């Protein structure tokens, strides 16, 4: 059932077994898993069913670190969350992403990739993907030329992607959520504070506030904060009436380790003989959503060179082309145009940036742009704190200080050096590394770019001194509070986070179902 929280009286107290804060990919996935169970589930969504600029403005924040996109343009604040504008790129994290790597400070998850595999498999269908298969051999699609480059390499391999339509959770699952007898969805229910008991061992309620100043409370036996990574941290930090540094922040970890994926053009590839090297499997065909590959560093090479995980896309072009980073490619004007296009029923061609010029090369393309996609090293100084500025609900805004380490840049440069050596060894071609990547390892160009993938602000670790939540996403210091979404990621992996987010949400839901 659904209730617009604006219709409730001031002082209303909602009561449930489980209270989920946030109805994005994580919150909706968890709620669906608990549908038709004996649990009474309160699902609190800050926004409504449609984009509302005033609601979206609640996500506006400060940026005091490296150049970053306006915070209110990244995560979406209405039912369905950021799946309302995500692009649908899916690929699982690799086993090495979960491992403790002694050359990557603060790395290591308390779970393994094998723990997530069954949930990855289930997440595939939720996101309208194909089977849980990510070997290039699985995606030849009857075309003998869809084969990886550098097939014999132990240093570079081809990592496959699948593409969601993309699934809009707000559209696809709205009726299912609203009609579930045990799920009580409240829209326009912005949580502004988490309230614990006096001993700070359990959460008792959350405080919900409207633009008109009206306040209601939600009480439950257990709570899940399933907002996006910045908002989850912000909410815990802003819940500072009982604990000066915020709830769950005894070890000064909440908000730290903010991570992104570095998505930037960083190299060029020239093929020795285009007739002998097929690049079909790397082609991006958004219209057909055909699975595609990216060149990736192997775990063996990552260990040997002590670098981070990363991939690069292989995109036809010409030497000297201006290639844009993700942040440069998609600006707010385009985002709004795409939003309007979706709302209008996707009629006509989707709004896009200017068309890329056709390759000037006669015949088969010889030149390719290499666009990086790399995990960011976990960094405690890359963090979310609270601004002195407040939003319309009186909640301190988020302040982002996005920071890199020497390892981030060195890893990207090493990736291209390895790739270049492998291209040369096999006679496939040559690789050029962009100038900015050849310089010192402390500076980044103005077009440094993430992918709007916010991760790691409420990280997972077995040791409370190293992480806020345990392997089950339960807050170490608050027995009945769980965190959903990418905030719990200890490391970012090389690929986009949504498939892992859904898998992890399924796992959390199973835990919630089987425990009390």
């Amino acid at each position, binding site marked *: 059932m659904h209730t617009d929280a604006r219709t409730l009286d001031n002082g209303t107290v909602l009561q449930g077994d489980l209270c989920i804060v946030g109805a994005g990919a994580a919150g909706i996935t968890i709620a669906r898993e608990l549908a038709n169970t004996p649990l009474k589930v309160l699902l609190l969504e800050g926004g409504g069913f449609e984009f509302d600029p005033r609601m979206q403005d609640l996500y506006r924040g400060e940026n005091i670190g490296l150049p970053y996109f306006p915070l209110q343009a990244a995560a979406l604040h209405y039912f369905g969350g950021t799946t309302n504008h995500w692009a649908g790129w899916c690929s699982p994290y690799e086993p090495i992403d979960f491992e403790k790597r002694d050359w990557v400070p603060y790395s290591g998850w308390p779970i393994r990739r094998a723990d997530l595999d069954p949930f990855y498999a289930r997440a595939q269908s939720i996101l309208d993907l194909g089977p849980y298969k990510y070997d290039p051999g699985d995606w030849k699609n009857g075309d003998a030329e869809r084969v990886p480059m550098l097939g014999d390499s132990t240093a570079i391999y081809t990592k496959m992607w699948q593409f969601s339509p993309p699934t809009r959770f707000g559209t696809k699952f709205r009726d299912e959520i609203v009609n579930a007898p045990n799920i009580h969805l409240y829209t326009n229910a912005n949580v502004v504070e988490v309230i614990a008991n006096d001993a700070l061992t359990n959460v008792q309620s959350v405080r919900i506030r409207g633009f008109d100043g009206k306040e209601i409370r939600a009480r439950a036996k257990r709570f899940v904060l399933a907002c996006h990574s910045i908002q989850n941290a912000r909410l815990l930090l802003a819940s500072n009436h009982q604990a000066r540094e915020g709830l769950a922040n005894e070890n000064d970890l909440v908000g730290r380790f903010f991570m992104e994926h570095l998505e930037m053009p960083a190299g060029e590839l020239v093929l020795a003989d285009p007739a002998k090297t097929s690049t079909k499997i790397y082609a991006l065909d958004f219209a057909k959503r055909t699975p595609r590959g990216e060149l990736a560093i192997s775990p063996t090479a990552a260990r040997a060179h002590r670098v981070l995980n990363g991939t690069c896309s292989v995109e036809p072009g010409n030497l000297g082309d201006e290639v844009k980073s993700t942040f440069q490619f998609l600006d707010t004007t385009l985002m709004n145009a795409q939003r309007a296009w979706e709302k209008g029923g996707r009629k006509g061609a989707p709004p896009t940036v200017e068309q890329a010029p056709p390759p000037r090369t006669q015949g088969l393309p010889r030149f390719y742009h290499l666009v990086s996609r790399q995990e960011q090293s976990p960094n405690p100084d890359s963090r979310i704190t609270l601004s002195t500025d407040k939003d319309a609900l009186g909640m301190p805004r988020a302040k982002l200080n996005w920071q890199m380490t020497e390892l981030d840049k060195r890893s990207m440069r090493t990736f291209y*050096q390895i790739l270049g*050596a492998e291209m040369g*060894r096999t006679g496939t071609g040559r690789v050029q590394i962009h100038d900015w990547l050849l310089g010192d390892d402390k500076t980044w160009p103005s077009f440094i770019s993430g992918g709007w993938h916010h991760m790691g602000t409420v990280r997972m670790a077995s040791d409370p001194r190293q992480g806020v939540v345990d392997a089950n996403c339960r807050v170490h210091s608050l027995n009945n509070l769980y965190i959903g979404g990418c905030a719990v990621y200890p490391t970012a992996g090389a690929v986009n986070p949504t498939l892992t987010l859904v898998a992890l949400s399924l796992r959390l839901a199973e835990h919630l179902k089987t425990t009390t």
Partner: protein
Amino acid sequence: MGRFGHQPPAGSFYFAVTQSLVLVQFPWMQLDRRHFLQLSALGVAAIVCPACETDRTATLERPRLLDMLGPDRVRVIGKQYLSSTPTETTADALRSAISKSRHESRIPLMPRSLEDQVREDFIKGHTILVDGWVLSVTEARQSALFALSS
């Protein structure tokens, strides 16, 4: 165009030299024209054809990079190599350096083809960054020779 996309500068001459080489008889070698030309550049052909001296020089100065990147970019690479390697700023020094590297051949009696030498550079990590390109040291030197000659 040849099998590897090269324009033979003097096809009949190569044919004639190839015939000479066949007479020398290396039945264990799978020689194609590219390998032969490179061997020529490194001196083998000189044994059977002293008149090849001019062509040997020309091949050394024509790295395979030319097919991939064209003369302008290879010239840039060559000039950068020259400016960053003070000990190899003359054609003689570059040829000598390539030749010295050649003597690490796996087949002592038979110099490697330049293509093999380049590949071996990559395998052994004898690579160098020039103008951002990850190159074999041999082909970087070839590019420098090209820059000096053009």
